[in-house]
């Protein structure tokens, strides 16, 4: 499956489908005042954006990051804190993203030099350190103050999530077709060969790592802007690594549309199963995930392989 550089130009039909889907999503709050539907759509977009940010590094860059929650959590924490101190939400999101960027450089420079399993374990350790420390330092639940709650509406949050999902997906799509993107793919397939043909492996890896972290921080910021009350350490929970990982693999790792399809599937199934089966839905997800890794490494995208739906991005696994 490696090196499947099929050149599928976005035909007019596909382009139309994408544009009309985004338009339909943009019109959703105008058409429907149903808060439950809007809320569900918000979550799909949030998870799609987060999974896409994981996919950028995990699928496209070929590095399994088990500490994605650290970036999500830091973005959420910083954004929430400065926003509640009175900064406009845009600037708060920017600060949150910058803090994730800083952590990306700080963590990436030493950890990306590690080979083998150490990168995955090291990132997991970073996330756990932050989760425990934040839980200890900020044990209080963070609740929106009454005056913010009085003016709280879902619609602007929904548009933010829509913008993120579309923006990050577009960024991944564009990157996959760029010169830098080919460099990243080369490093993923074989670092030695990539270096030999003049690609600076470390810089490419660091670049994807930091970009992926920034996106995750931004998504975390929107989560902090959306959620009425949560424990600060909750945003650092391993769930914020595992759910996007699950979504990405179910949809199709290393493909542009996999995380989006995976997010729709994940949240629909979770909604349907959690109501009827309670805990059992985790069992279903676990088994599905193992089945995908073992038997169908391309995920949903490989299973369907709709013509014109394929990305130019070669699959992440050999």
């Amino acid at each position, binding site marked *: 499956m490696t090196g499947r550089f099929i050149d599928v130009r976005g035909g007019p039909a596909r382009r139309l489908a994408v544009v009309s889907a985004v338009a339909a999503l943009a019109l959703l709050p105008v058409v429907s005042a149903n808060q439950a539907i809007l809320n569900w759509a918000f979550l799909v977009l949030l998870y799609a954006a987060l999974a896409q940010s994981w996919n950028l590094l995990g699928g496209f860059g070929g590095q*399994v990051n*088990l500490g994605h929650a650290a970036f999500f959590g830091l973005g959420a924490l910083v954004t929430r804190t400065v926003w509640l101190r009175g900064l406009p939400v845009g600037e708060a999101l920017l600060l949150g993203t910058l803090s994730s960027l800083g952590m990306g450089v700080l963590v990436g420079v*030493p*950890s990306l030099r*590690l080979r*083998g*399993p*150490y990168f*995955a*374990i*090291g990132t*997991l*350790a*970073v996330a*756990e*350190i932050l989760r*425990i*420390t934040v*839980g*200890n330092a900020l044990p209080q639940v963070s609740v929106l103050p009454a005056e913010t709650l009085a003016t709280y509406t879902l619609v602007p949050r929904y548009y933010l999530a829509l913008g993120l999902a579309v923006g990050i997906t577009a960024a991944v799509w564009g990157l996959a077709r760029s010169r830098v993107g080919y460099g990243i793919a080369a490093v993923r397939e074989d670092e030695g060969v990539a270096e030999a043909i003049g690609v600076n492996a470390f810089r490419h890896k660091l670049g994807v790592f930091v970009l992926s972290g920034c996106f995750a921080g931004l998504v975390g910021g929107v989560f902090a802007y959306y959620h009425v009350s949560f424990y600060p350490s909750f945003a650092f929970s*391993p769930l914020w690594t*595992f759910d996007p*990982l699950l979504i990405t*693999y179910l949809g199709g790792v290393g493909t542009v549309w996999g995380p989006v399809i995976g997010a729709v599937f994940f949240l629909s199934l979770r909604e349907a199963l959690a109501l009827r089966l309670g*805990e*059992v839905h*985790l*069992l279903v*997800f*676990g*088994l599905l*995930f*193992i089945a995908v*890794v*073992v038997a169908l490494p391309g995920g949903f995208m490989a299973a369907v392989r709709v013509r014109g739906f394929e990305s130019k991005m070669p699959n992440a*696994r*050999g």
Partner: protein
Amino acid sequence: MIFAQNAVFGLLIGGLYGLAAVGLSLVFGVLKMLNVAHGELLMLGGYTGFWLFTLWGVDPFLAVLPSALALFGVGALLYQVLFRRLIYASDETKLKNSILIGFGLTLVMQTLAILAWTADERAITTPYAGAVVHIDGVVVPVLRVGALGVAFLVLGGLHLFLHRTLPGKALRATAEDVEAAALAGIPVPKIFLLSFGLGSALAGVAGTLVSMTDAVSPAIGLSWTLKALIVVVLGGLGSIFGTFAAGLFLGVTESMSGFVLGNAYREVMGLVLFLLVLVLRPQGLFGSGPA
């Protein structure tokens, strides 16, 4: 005196860290796969010990054996059904996919454990659970000393197995060079199966001891996997007793930092230490040569 007390407690818990880590290290050393569901296997071992005690009154020190056998079976099954599919993949794919499969397994095993046994914490309380010995004013719980002793005995047995028996030597040869081992007539697939089973059995022993000294619940897996990973990195690969020493070291570090910084931060210091070693000395504190 408080200092000595903390050191003793650290050593006693550290023995279990070492035991948990040796199983993980064995699987990684031979198969070049990282089973991140190792902590969940330990959790299953804990429940095995707990139910043997609760239903039939089997003393946990004796339950170690059936628990090891049961987990050997679970490990062998997991290997045959899932991990065996990866053995012909490239090193990098093998590693990555084993992590992913293990991650899926953690979800499955945790949920199954909650469904079967609820999310409650369970612990074994033996008649002698509260017994302590005073040495120079330092309180030494007998139970934990016993657990440390069992851990040490099991690892000693493993050492003898690896160095004095033919299957053990075949296992070490496979860890060193799979192709050369296969050329020498070693049945490599069987050795893989044996290693995975042994690694799981060690998790089973550790789990049974944990259910006696601490408690088990379906959620303990991740934290034990992390502990085992930390210890493996601290100890470096290759030596059982190096890993065991690293386990003791982690136990004492946690206990001391819990004492100095407050109990809430004891795990954090272990993780920080781990990151420092990872960055500064990737071959491990006690290991030699590159990782």
